[in-house]
């Protein structure tokens, strides 16, 4: 492929998480190879092997829930017996379920931030962020807070360079997704439990799998298909603490909740028994041409911008279909397209990515949780999108007036800390390379102090967009 002087900075910004001060010169001889070679190592997406698994965290939360119930009733009993005087108090040292979830969330955020600012495979981390947002779960829903980090480590990271069908299944079978989109409440009306209890379907997960995860909203499905998929997914639930027959906190299939008789989805009937019917349906959805189109378009808009051409989307779509959804192959198709490198920088960097790029660029040591907090102040709260659609991803979505102003305030905080050590003029060359425009260079040179020069660098259009 032909090469331009801008490719090195594009490799590290558009296909990465920002430039580190010595990095442009290191990759300048082969920027394309620098990005593409990251696709060869599936293990570089894996982090936090020492952190507890989601099911371990859930198990602990279930135990705490149980303990707090027992303590509460003991206190009530004791009060009743001793006519008002309190014999037993809830143990202050016993962590509440909410506290466990909060602590788990914080530890997971820190591990993620540390990895983002230090990784040598930033393109792979971008893929993690993309897919984590595509299969969005949110910490705002009760104890899901405790396992959103585990969701990303267990369902997303191992699969970002694998088959899309594995990613779809891993996401749909993870406790965080089953709880977030209510499948744990969905019961086949004619199942054993459904007939006994009168409970029935909950179509939330099924609808979002069709609309968001696979086919896309105009992918050609009907309300009947939503219902059919909901039927096929009945019984997909999470083991609770009440039995020794399963591992608490892990995905499990409950046959007594599963609607018998299969279902007709997109004109195809799924009659397999047990969880196989749902898995077969997800496999077909993951391979569907509408899915290929939906995923290709979303990837191109994310990495290149809203004004993408059908030609580029078509290349990824074909790569998706020809490789049976092999995501490394799909990403290679993107990297091999010249227009993916040359399209103008239009995308305003979302706050989390921006904070990571500030730390990488300014070589500034910050407590990891501060990055999360700053991004949150700009409306981008880690693992907490306000809907299953995930965070907005349009070119200008993160350039809201107030958010832009507050970005300036945060940049001031950073600039004050590094002003003694960094020269804004040489840093601008090191971080923006051939993308640095004469106008930005002039404004940095004319700054009245180092701090101001650094602020202008970090707030320049080149640094705000990728």
């Amino acid at each position, binding site marked *: 492929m032909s090469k331009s002087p801008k490719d090195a900075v594009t490799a590290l910004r558009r296909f990465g998480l920002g430039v580190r001060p010595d990095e442009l010169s290191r990759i300048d001889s082969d920027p394309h190879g620098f990005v593409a070679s990251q696709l060869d190592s599936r293990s570089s997406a894996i982090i936090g092997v020492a952190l507890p698994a989601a099911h371990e965290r859930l198990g602990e939360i279930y135990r705490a829930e149980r303990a707090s119930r027992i303590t509460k009733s003991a206190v009530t009993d004791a009060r009743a017996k001793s006519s008002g005087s309190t014999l037993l108090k809830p143990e202050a040292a016993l962590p509440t379920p909410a506290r466990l979830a909060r602590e788990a969330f914080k530890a997971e955020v820190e591990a993620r931030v540390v990895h983002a600012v230090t990784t040598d495979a930033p393109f792979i981390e971008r893929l993690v962020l993309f897919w984590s947002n595509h299969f969005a779960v949110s910490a705002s829903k009760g104890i899901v807070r405790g396992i959103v980090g585990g969701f990303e480590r267990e369902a997303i990271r191992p699969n970002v360079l694998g088959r899309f069908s594995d990613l779809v299944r891993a996401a749909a079978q993870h406790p965080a997704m089953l709880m977030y*989109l209510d499948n744990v409440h969905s019961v086949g009306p004619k199942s054993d439990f459904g007939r006994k209890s009168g409970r029935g379907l909950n179509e939330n997960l099924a609808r979002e799998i069709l609309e968001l995860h696979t086919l896309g909203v105009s992918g050609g499905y009907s309300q009947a298909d939503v219902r059919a998929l909901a039927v096929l997914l009945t019984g997909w639930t999470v083991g609770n603490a009440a039995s020794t027959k399963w591992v608490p906190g892990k995905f499990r299939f409950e046959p007594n909740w599963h609607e018998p008789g299969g279902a007709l989805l997109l004109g195809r009937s799924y009659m397999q028994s047990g969880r196989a019917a749902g898995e077969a349906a997800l496999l077909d959805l993951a391979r569907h041409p509408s899915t290929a189109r939906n995923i290709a378009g979303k990837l191109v808009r994310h990495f290149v911008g809203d004004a993408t051409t059908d030609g580029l989307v078509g290349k990824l779509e074909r790569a998706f279909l020809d490789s049976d959804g092999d995501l490394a192959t799909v990403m290679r198709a993107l990297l091999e397209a010249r227009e993916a490198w040359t399209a103008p920088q239009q995308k305003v960097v979302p706050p989390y990515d921006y904070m990571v790029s500030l730390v990488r660029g300014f070589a500034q040591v910050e407590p990891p949780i501060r990055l999360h907090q700053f991004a949150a*102040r700009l409306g981008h709260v880690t693992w907490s999108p306000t809907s299953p659609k995930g965070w907005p991803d349009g070119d200008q*979505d993160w350039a*809201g*007036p107030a958010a832009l102003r507050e970005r300036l*305030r945060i940049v001031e*905080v950073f600039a004050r800390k590094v002003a003694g050590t960094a020269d804004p003029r040489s840093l601008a060359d090191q971080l923006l390379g051939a993308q640095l425009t004469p106008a930005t260079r002039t404004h940095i040179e004319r700054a009245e102090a180092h701090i101001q020069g650094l602020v202008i660098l970090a707030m320049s259009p080149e640094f705000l967009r990728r």
Partner: protein
Amino acid sequence: MPSQSRIPFVNQPTRRGFLGGGAASLAFWSCVPSRAVAAPRDPRFLVIILRGGLDGLSYIAPVGDPDYIGLRGALALPVEGSDAATSLDGLFALNRNAPFLAELYKRREAIAIQAVATPYRGRSHFDGQDVLESGLGQVARIEDGWLNRSLGVVPAVGLPRRSGLALAAVVPLVIRGKQPIYSWIPPAANLPLRESTIQRLVDLYAATDPQLAAAFAEGISSRAVGRSETSAAPMPGQAPTSPGQAAPFAGFVAAAETAGRFLASADGPRIGALSFDGWDMHAHAGVVDGQLGRRLGGLDLAIRALHTALGAAWSETVIALVTEFGRTVRPNGSAGTDHGIATCALLLGGRVNGGRVIADWPGLSESALYEGRDLRPTIDLRSVLKGVLKDHLGLSAGALRARSMAS
């Protein structure tokens, strides 16, 4: 109490006007004859989007419909006892978690509209919100919303500034567009911004990046108002900073209060948009003391806070509460509801000739339900909103057709 909708189909609008083209505006919402204000008018209009699909049947419940209790089951509002819904007329009653709304209704400063929907007939939140905010008849993926387009054609009299107001980091589509907006979020750090740095960035953007230039100028222009008139309040969805009765909904309440202060201030914006998220309740909705009941209570506190913050400006205000769609009439298998079609909307404020429920009530009988599961829409939400734009903000019929909500 007014008696308009004691019987279904009283106050019946002509259906043809409200469906299909959506060209007509709903005129009878209006206050103008009885509450015309003699002094120069300075109208305020705030749109609150309840994202996630509000279950309108749990807010403004058709307790007098013979099929209501049977179909809704555990989600039916009680009409007797301590949790009894507040009767609005013979047919509809208001969730008990909305005492302030009940007060406004009694003072004739609230109108409820039932069985209302945008032209969207799918069940995707995101397409539903797209149609609600773009104001178009179908999903269009455009970059500006009807409120922003309306800003451009509001007659200047009485509107010192045409800027719109958005209280969000990501500006909602409904108020995004060509017209400038004030945008406010709490300060991210306890640092004053330096004028000289601001000036240099304004210069730089002007030279190289018109989009950033426009957004930055708007961000900077709303800084002073934000700092002088509001505390560092949490935004919707953020953890509350102070405990208290409103704790779980402190973000709602603070955002509403901030909006009220902006709209009330002498040189502030006059037209704004707010989002309250979290209405998508697929499991264990709990209409009285569960999650839906509590959230309606939080919304009521937010309305009260808006009322207080607006002060005297309340008399010049209309607030529209809208959502992308309603929910299934029957509970789903887990005591929640799935995505449906028609729902309710509310108009509040001193300019509203209220104390009425407006409905062309389709009923809840099996044959009346949309696709056998959802409340059938009989009023186009756009006609309601156009009525406000026309009667309250003075948009001409031509401007309405061409700019605000083309169909």
